[in-house]
């Protein structure tokens, strides 16, 4: 079911991870991503795994939920790993026909898969523990300086939060329209590619019309609630950096330094 997609989903909570300033979390995730790309040894992966595990533990989000975010990409990960197994030269373990499985290939495959999975899980931790609005506020403020060079930062942030707001509604709507057209005998599963693409029209046309209608009504409702752009806006939740934010930064820099050091010594 389409409903099972967790894209951009937020799990409310009141843990340390939830309470971190969104700006902190965005920067932390960026550092995490950089560190993941530098890491290339057992030791550094172990270190990163500890970081990820503690974030998950602290956030009290179930591991199964975090893993679910990886599921849609499992095929991509599998193919990447598969290619790595066969296309890495080195110490040959098994050989048949033109294929050679090497020790290095297996290691590479495991690391590559692990890296992608950890990257996804880490980034999902950001959206799982930060409400989309806080996320946009964070991005808006981090990008704030760009206003000077006339980048419409508020508008971009608003568009993003609107998109996030409408995604669950439109997914639900797609489900409904699909059921309704199936009830009229529509068949989405059989036929060649052209037929399948054509079969999507009865879903896409009503979906687009409905999306525009919703956008229109939403705009009127926003106007009714005195929306007039970003000027003079205040916030319910003002972003304030606290002790925990500075400590997290310090830890993140330490981890990054650790990974770089490990890489430097080829560990």
């Amino acid at each position, binding site marked *: 079911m389409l409903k099972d997609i967790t894209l951009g989903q937020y799990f409310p909570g009141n843990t340390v991870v939830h309470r971190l300033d969104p700006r902190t979390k965005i920067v932390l995730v960026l550092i995490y991503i950089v560190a993941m790309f530098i890491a290339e040894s057992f030791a550094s992966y172990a270190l990163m795994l500890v970081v990820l595990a503690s974030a998950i533990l602290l956030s009290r989000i179930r591991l199964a939920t975090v893993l679910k975010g990886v599921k849609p990409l499992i095929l991509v990960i599998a193919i990447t790993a598969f290619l790595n197994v066969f296309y890495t030269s080195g110490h040959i373990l098994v050989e048949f026909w033109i294929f050679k499985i090497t020790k290095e290939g297996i290691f590479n495959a495991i690391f590559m898969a692990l890296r992608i999975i950890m990257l996804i899980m880490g980034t999902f931790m950001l959206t799982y523990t930060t409400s989309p609005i806080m996320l946009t506020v964070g991005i808006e403020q981090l990008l704030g300086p760009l206003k000077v060079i006339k980048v419409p930062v508020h508008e971009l942030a608003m568009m993003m939060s609107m998109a996030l707001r409408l995604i669950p509604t439109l997914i639900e*709507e797609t489900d*409904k*329209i699909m*059921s*309704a*057209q*199936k*009830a*009229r*005998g*529509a*068949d989405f599963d059989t036929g060649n590619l052209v037929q399948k693409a054509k079969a999507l*029209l*009865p879903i896409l*046309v*009503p979906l687009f*019309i*409905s999306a525009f209608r919703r956008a229109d009504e939403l705009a009127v409702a926003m106007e009714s609630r005195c929306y007039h752009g970003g000027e003079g806006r205040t916030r319910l939740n003002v972003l304030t950096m606290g002790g925990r934010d500075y400590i997290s930064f310090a830890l993140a820099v330490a981890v990054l330094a650790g990974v770089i050091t490990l890489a430097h010594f080829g560990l």
Partner: protein
Amino acid sequence: MLIMGDIPQKRKPHRKEKCMSKTPILKIENLTHVYSKGTPFELSALNGINLEIGRGEVIGIIGHTGSGKSTLIQHLNALIKPTDGKIYLDGKDINESKQSVKEARSRVGLVFQYPEYQLFEETVYKDIAFGPKNMRLTPDEIDVRVRASAQFVGIGEELLERSPFDLSGGQKRRIAIAGVIAMLPEVLVLDEPMAGLDPAGRREIMENLMGYHQETGNAMLIVTHSMEEAARYAQRMIVLEHGRVAMDGTPEQVFSREKELKEMGLAVPEMTELAEKLREYGVPLEGTIYTVEQMRDALLSLKGGLQDA
């Protein structure tokens, strides 16, 4: 005038025969449905439903949000598969094969809530023809069905070549219903067909639907929140609660259990409530009253009695 009787029908028995036939058109046996089974979001929506829907019955399905109504009706044409239990259409399990599913989709027509949001074709004609086309009928058969269904829902010929998106909300709703009627389903299931319409619009749609029912003799299941409307049009009412059939009977039988209905958080018809009040005041009303006409006649007969005495 075109009527559905003119339509060449393949497997449909003659109307009279149909009404006389004893076997139910739909039989629901021990139907259970659990959403997201095995996850923390597990939600049991239906718990062992047993029902028989007779050919040509008009049934009102009542229950508050979350009682399982929507889940139940989506099982009837195999849009949702049972977790447990079976649904028989004309004695055949509808989930038996791909073929049986396909057959159920056309023989049990399902009109969702706000069906006007599913219109997609350039013209009214083409949109109504979508269902019959999917049934692979001949162009001639499709043409007859489109015109007849449009007529049933009160959409004039002159609108057939218009874009459905240029028409009013009420007209769109009726076109969407025609799109399902055009499949000539032996059971027509409608989820709140009148939601959001003004009183005149509600009346019109219900009258169109009753006209269709009388003409074809096909069974109709109407999910509604309006007790008054269910009572006015249905011969039988099914009340669902917590995924179970809480009541099943004639409107009289159902409304005579006023207390239980209220305990379920359902509204009883205004006239039923009024009758109760009047009895409290000592007005000797007999039987179950749920329509204005019944109340009027009951009161007038009382008055007659008074005058005679």
